[in-house]
């Protein structure tokens, strides 16, 4: 029992923060968002080549680092702190899904291709009808299988070399496919969103033919459900970073800003808000690292799925609240300048809002916990 970073983890944290402080500056983030690629491709390259973050969750035998979820959380938290605009989340999510698939040549090929820096995105749900719905079907024709329907909010889908697609088959079971975004019947479009730092795409399938070697997993309901839980935990890491940075920049601003002959940081109204913000982010951080440890334990067979899902629900409820509260309170602490384009706090605010509802709102997470507690099942 040791709920503190190892020396290696501490070092990973320090180097991640230092790297991003240098590369993902306020100016750089704005440039990345408004560039045609919607991110800084050179930065992604240097992440892949110098930091190798894309390989954290990828097993060593397919050229990854084979590290654990605590390491992944450390890096994504640092990414959130600096509003990093990059396919890191998309790649981590795709890795999580692939690692859960039955072993296959295709799976390993995809993993090692990601380890080499290829972007992949998971096309999971159709969030216009709910965050855990699936809008793509896989139907058998006389000659082949075709995918039809739409997946929305596919992270960095427009930049993906391959798309992992969740589809419902004729027997109503979920299946997971890999498709090439260039192939016939696949249409990928960037989806402009309020938060520009985590760009999304809509992927539409019009009778897109797939072959059996593109099938990564059938009867994948548990896999998809678990991947959703894992995706929440990845998002939580981002939210903890956003919550922390919102606190930090707001306290810094409050220390600079004078009104009534005092820095506003000396007013109890400001101090107590900041204290509440710290309480929120530290709590979310505790649940993040608990959840990360739980994933590692689940992968090692030490705890069951219920523990994994509970950890994800709890961490998501807490971190979503923390990020939104801290970014919103941060705007208030900034006063008038908080709502100007010039200051960064509004960027954190938009990112906090986007992630808060991305895979279910806090009240939905709490209801899922209540269901576990009161009806005694995994939701």
């Amino acid at each position, binding site marked *: 029992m040791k709920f503190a970073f190892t020396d290696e983890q501490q070092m990973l944290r320090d180097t991640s923060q230092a790297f991003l402080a240098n590369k993902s500056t306020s100016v750089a983030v704005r440039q990345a968002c408004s560039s045609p690629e919607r991110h800084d491709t050179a930065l992604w390259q240097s992440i892949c080549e110098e930091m190798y973050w894309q390989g954290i969750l990828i097993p060593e035998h397919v050229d990854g680092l084979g590290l654990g979820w605590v390491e992944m959380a450390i890096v994504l938290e640092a990414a959130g702190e600096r509003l990093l605009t990059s396919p890191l989340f998309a790649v981590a999510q795709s890795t999580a899904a692939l690692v859960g698939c039955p072993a296959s040549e295709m799976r390993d090929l995809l993993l090692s291709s990601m380890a080499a820096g290829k972007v992949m995105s998971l096309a999971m749900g159709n969030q216009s009808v709910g965050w855990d719905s699936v809008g793509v079907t896989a139907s058998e024709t006389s000659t082949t299988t075709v995918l039809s329907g739409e997946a929305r909010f596919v992270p960095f889908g427009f930049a993906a070399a391959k798309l992992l697609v969740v589809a419902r088959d004729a027997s109503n079971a979920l299946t997971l496919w890999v498709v090439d975004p260039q192939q016939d019947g696949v249409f990928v479009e960037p989806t402009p969103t*309020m938060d520009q730092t985590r760009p999304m795409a809509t992927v539409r399938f019009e009778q897109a033919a797939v072959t059996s070697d593109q099938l990564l997993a059938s009867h994948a309901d548990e896999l998809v459900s678990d991947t959703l839980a894992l995706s929440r935990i990845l998002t939580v890491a981002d939210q903890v970073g956003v919550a922390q940075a919102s606190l930090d920049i707001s306290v810094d601003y409050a220390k600079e800003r004078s009104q009534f002959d005092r820095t506003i940081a000396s007013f109890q109204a400001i101090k107590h808000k900041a204290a509440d913000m710290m309480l929120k982010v530290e709590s979310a951080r505790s649940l993040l690292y608990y959840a990360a440890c739980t994933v590692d334990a689940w992968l090692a067979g030490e705890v069951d799925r219920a523990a994994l899902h509970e950890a994800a629900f709890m961490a998501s409820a807490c971190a979503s609240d923390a990020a939104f509260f801290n970014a919103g309170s941060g705007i208030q602490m900034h006063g008038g300048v908080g*709502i100007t384009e010039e200051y960064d706090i509004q960027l954190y605010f938009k990112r906090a809002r986007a992630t808060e509802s991305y895979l279910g709102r806090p009240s939905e997470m709490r209801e899922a916990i209540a269901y576990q507690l009161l009806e005694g099942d995994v939701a």
Partner: protein
Amino acid sequence: MKLTFTAADEQFREEVADWLNDNLRDEFADIRYRGGPGDEHRFVDERKAWERRLADGRWTCIGWPETWGGRAASIEQQVIFHEEYARAGGPGRMGHIGDTLTGPTLLAFGSEQQKAKYLPPIRDGVAFWSQGYSEPGAGSDLAAIRTKAVQDETSGQWKITGQKVWTSLAHESDFVFVLARVDRDSSRHHGLGFFLVALDQPGVTIRPITQLTGTAEFNEVYFDDAVCDAEDIVGAPGDGWKVAMGLLGFERGVSTLGQQMLFQTELDEIIRIAKSNGASRDPDIRQRIAEAHIGLKTMRYNSMRMLSGGEDGSLSREAMIYKLYWSSWHRNLGKLAMDVLGPEAELIESGPYELNKLQSLFLFTRADTIYGGTNQIQRNLIAERALGMPKEPRGPGK
């Protein structure tokens, strides 16, 4: 204590509704429901034309005395006008500041000359005003203003130098009233003057401030020896604070009821969406919709109390809570709108910053708890003025 209106009032209501029905159409059809909070920068020319149409019908400045072209409308009539205006989808009033702030201020503190010069163009819907209070270093601490006004000893003309900020729609306005320091050795709320300044002059530079929405309703206004004639200072030099505070008092009047009608439109839209997309089945959403509904009713009856009482002009308890209440309510409404929309909330029409109405609502309402006195300042004021709690010690922390 009675909440129903008299027959005469109801007849007035009919008159207003009929006129709006006859006029808010044809060339004005497109601006119905437009130009409200978060949408203030849209359809500016059309809304200025609409002000002239209102003026033709004697529907500008209805609270002003008849001498100055008003209707000397009773509180009840003003309430009714605002309700019907909002119900009809009347656009955000370009003449709002002139009608409800400049006008009452000049009527209370202005010289006869100032009234004669400035009131008629406001009444006729041809002169538009903005306000110049806040400065970069004087936000919550308004008395810290540093903009200075120096009087030319021979001409009597004032030269104003400094910077104002958060000046709403300054680039679309003709005039600004400016609070500036006339006595360079003065501090805080002493030694200030209240100036009526034309914006279209070489000494004034207006720079838009881009907001988190990508739009720019607010401005920074730079004064560099901007000219203000001797007769365009309201009250004596040194009386500026008194005038400015009187003006702030006018902000909490019957127009709150018009504001609430806009809020009702927003809430109705959110309820409509919730019913259509199934969000209305979510217990959390249901609680919050009910809370929003109750809050809006609460504001209504807070306003009714405020308007029915306090004849002595002092700010009553229910008036003091008004800003804090509506700003928090509106901010919560913005969040509710997003949660009702669900994942759709993120989607914007095309490129960055083409936000839809509810997204603008969500983002802009973060400003509601800041401008016009932050929630923190409001709570200070309530505690000190209504509850008699002591001010804090001044001076730097350690």
